[in-house]
């Protein structure tokens, strides 16, 4: 399997979505190799077909493309800058570390990129309400924001544990006018929030739109979210060339469901001289229930409507997962990542809680940038990689979100180890 080389002809319109149709994967039934597909009850079949058809039509519609471009630019603040971490790089004494500053987007994370796209599509389809799950609350906030902007109602399902941990985001969603629905079933985290949101969606798929939070779920969601997110990498490619005269040697992004990673990586998949690293959370240990390193330790399986790597027991039931980062706390992963792992195009590595928290403080104190604890996993791996790559090389990290949402929790749990 090869990727169509579209990198040559995207220089003119590098941050447009007008060349979305040039992306080869998935096939028309939503398959990324043997992953993806649409494993859903018959009750959802028609509404997913409707979404696919509407999306296929709208993504070529100049009005839609212009509207989304305008919102990306004037509402989200795109293009997000690339920042050279001089202090951090010099301190490490290895490769140069650059950050793609998705944390500077409106709402503070990359999630707004696909939420604006999803909300615009929902509105064009005549839907009245957006519903979704959220883990860390970043997707929930971004979707609630898009709903408010476009005059749609919004219900966000969130696990009880995450509600406690991510209090500031819960408040933000409420201020934005969304209804936050607590989920107390099962493990009370992201996986259960997905179940609850799906159940609500099944009840009324006609007036609601499921604004999924990552490159997961049944077709067309992994494709659609990827298409809306790939602006990150397309921008970054041009910006990086401008700054350094060439494209990056290495890319690093954290992977939960995998939306920010796919967003950065897509534009570089055909540039085989670029090494790409996806960073999964190894939490407390590699024991079942103490990590969420799906691609590292999972096996192919089917959950939430798609086939992909999955952390599961011998029976086929998903295993409990854990990470200090609520946004990475998911037993599955986007199907395209599974394919890219099997192809060997992307190297998936792990960072544990402690390494992520160290990186959280390190970036805050060397560069004055407080990263989301999810993104801190990518920073932690970048620090390791900078050492082994050495001087003369560089690496670009997707700083997918800012850390404001995490500060109370982190100070309480880890503050005393870091003099605060």
């Amino acid at each position, binding site marked *: 399997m090869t990727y169509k080389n579209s990198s040559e002809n995207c220089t003119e319109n590098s941050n447009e979505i007008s060349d979305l149709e040039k992306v080869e994967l998935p096939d028309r039934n939503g398959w990324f190799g043997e992953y993806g597909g649409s494993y859903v*009850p018959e009750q959802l079949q028609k509404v997913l077909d409707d979404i696919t058809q509407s999306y296929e039509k709208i993504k070529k519609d100049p009005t839609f493309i212009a509207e989304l471009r305008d919102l990306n630019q004037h509402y989200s603040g795109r293009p997000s800058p690339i920042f050279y971490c001089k202090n951090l790089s010099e301190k490490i004494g290895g490769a140069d570390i650059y950050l793609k500053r998705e944390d500077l987007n409106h709402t503070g994370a990359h999630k707004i990129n696909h939420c604006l796209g999803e909300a615009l599509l929902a509105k064009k389809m005549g839907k009245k309400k957006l519903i979704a799950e959220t883990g860390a609350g970043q997707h929930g906030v971004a979707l609630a924001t898009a709903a408010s902007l476009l005059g749609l109602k919004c219900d966000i399902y969130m696990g009880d544990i995450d509600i406690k941990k991510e209090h500031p985001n819960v408040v933000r969603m409420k201020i934005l006018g969304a209804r936050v629905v607590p989920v107390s079933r099962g493990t009370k985290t992201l996986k259960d929030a997905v179940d609850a949101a799906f159940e609500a969606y099944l009840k*009324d798929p006609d007036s609601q739109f499921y604004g999924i939070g990552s490159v997961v779920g049944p077709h067309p969601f992994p494709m659609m979210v990827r298409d809306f997110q790939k602006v990150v990498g397309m921008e970054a490619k041009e910006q990086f060339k401008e700054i350094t005269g060439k494209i990056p040697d290495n890319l690093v992004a954290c992977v939960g469901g995998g939306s920010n990673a796919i967003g950065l990586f897509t534009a570089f998949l055909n540039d085989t001289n670029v090494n790409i690293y996806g960073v999964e959370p190894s939490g407390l240990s590699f024991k079942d229930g103490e990590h969420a390193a799906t691609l590292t330790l999972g096996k192919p399986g089917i959950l939430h409507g798609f086939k992909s790597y999955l952390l599961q027991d011998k029976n086929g039931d998903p295993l409990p997962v854990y990470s200090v980062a609520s946004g990475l706390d998911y037993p599955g992963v986007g199907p395209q990542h599974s394919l890219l792992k099997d192809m060997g195009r992307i190297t998936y590595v792990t960072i544990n809680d402690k390494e992520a928290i160290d990186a959280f403080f390190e970036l805050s104190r060397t560069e004055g940038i407080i990263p989301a604890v999810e993104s801190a996993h990518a920073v932690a791996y970048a620090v390791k990689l900078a050492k082994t790559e050495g001087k003369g090389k560089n690496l670009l990290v997707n700083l997918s979100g800012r850390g404001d949402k995490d500060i109370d929790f982190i100070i309480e749990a880890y503050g005393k180890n870091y003099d605060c």
Partner: protein
Amino acid sequence: MLESYIKQRLQTKDILLMTHIVIGYPSFKESMQVVEQMVDAGVDMMELQIPFSEPMADGPVILKANQDALKKGARVNNCFKFAEDAVKKFKIPFLFMSYYNILFKYGVEKFAEKMAETGLKGAIVPDLPPEEGKDYAISMGKNHLSPIYIISPTTCDQRMTYLASKGSGFIYCVARKGVTGGQTEFSGGLEDYLKKCRRAVNLPLAVGFGVKNRADVEYLTGRADIAVIGSETIRIVNRDGSGAVGEFLKNLR
């Protein structure tokens, strides 16, 4: 075969009853007692659900039963054992119901072979449409098992015919949108939908989702061939204990 059994039964009964249990809920012992009461009450066939922690098409009642059964140790292997015991003990056809990852993890072909060996007659896998389940359909066919496909009120005529052409035994018509166990209006709108199903489908029709009393079964008599009782018997077990299911079922027809 399942279809001929259903047609034969329909010569003496106006409508058949299919019930459902979650294996291992509230315990293995009690779920077998519930099966026994169901058979004694004259149900014609039964779905045995292998618990899965994310039962996508099920509502809160069956979801909780799934999760509790898992906590009590229900796994594929002891579910097969349970089915084997039920098949040996009782004369009616038993079907498995579960979600696709359970079959996928076990190995679809191995799963179908084991089902046949156990004496099961078919399976309902709500998250496996025929488009994604080609291996499954082949394995089921090879082992003379019926893959039961589902039609919903949003299914168009053309797809109804397609689903019917892929299925065998009977077609399961979901009475409304949403998940199992909610309220269903057994009235006007449903009539048109069932007529549409009848026209498009050559197999017997089962109707489920929200069937919970005598009036509902009466409504379906003449409009469908099989009434499916799912969440309601679990509610009764939760409220009145597993001994109360038989009485409830005897009063349905």
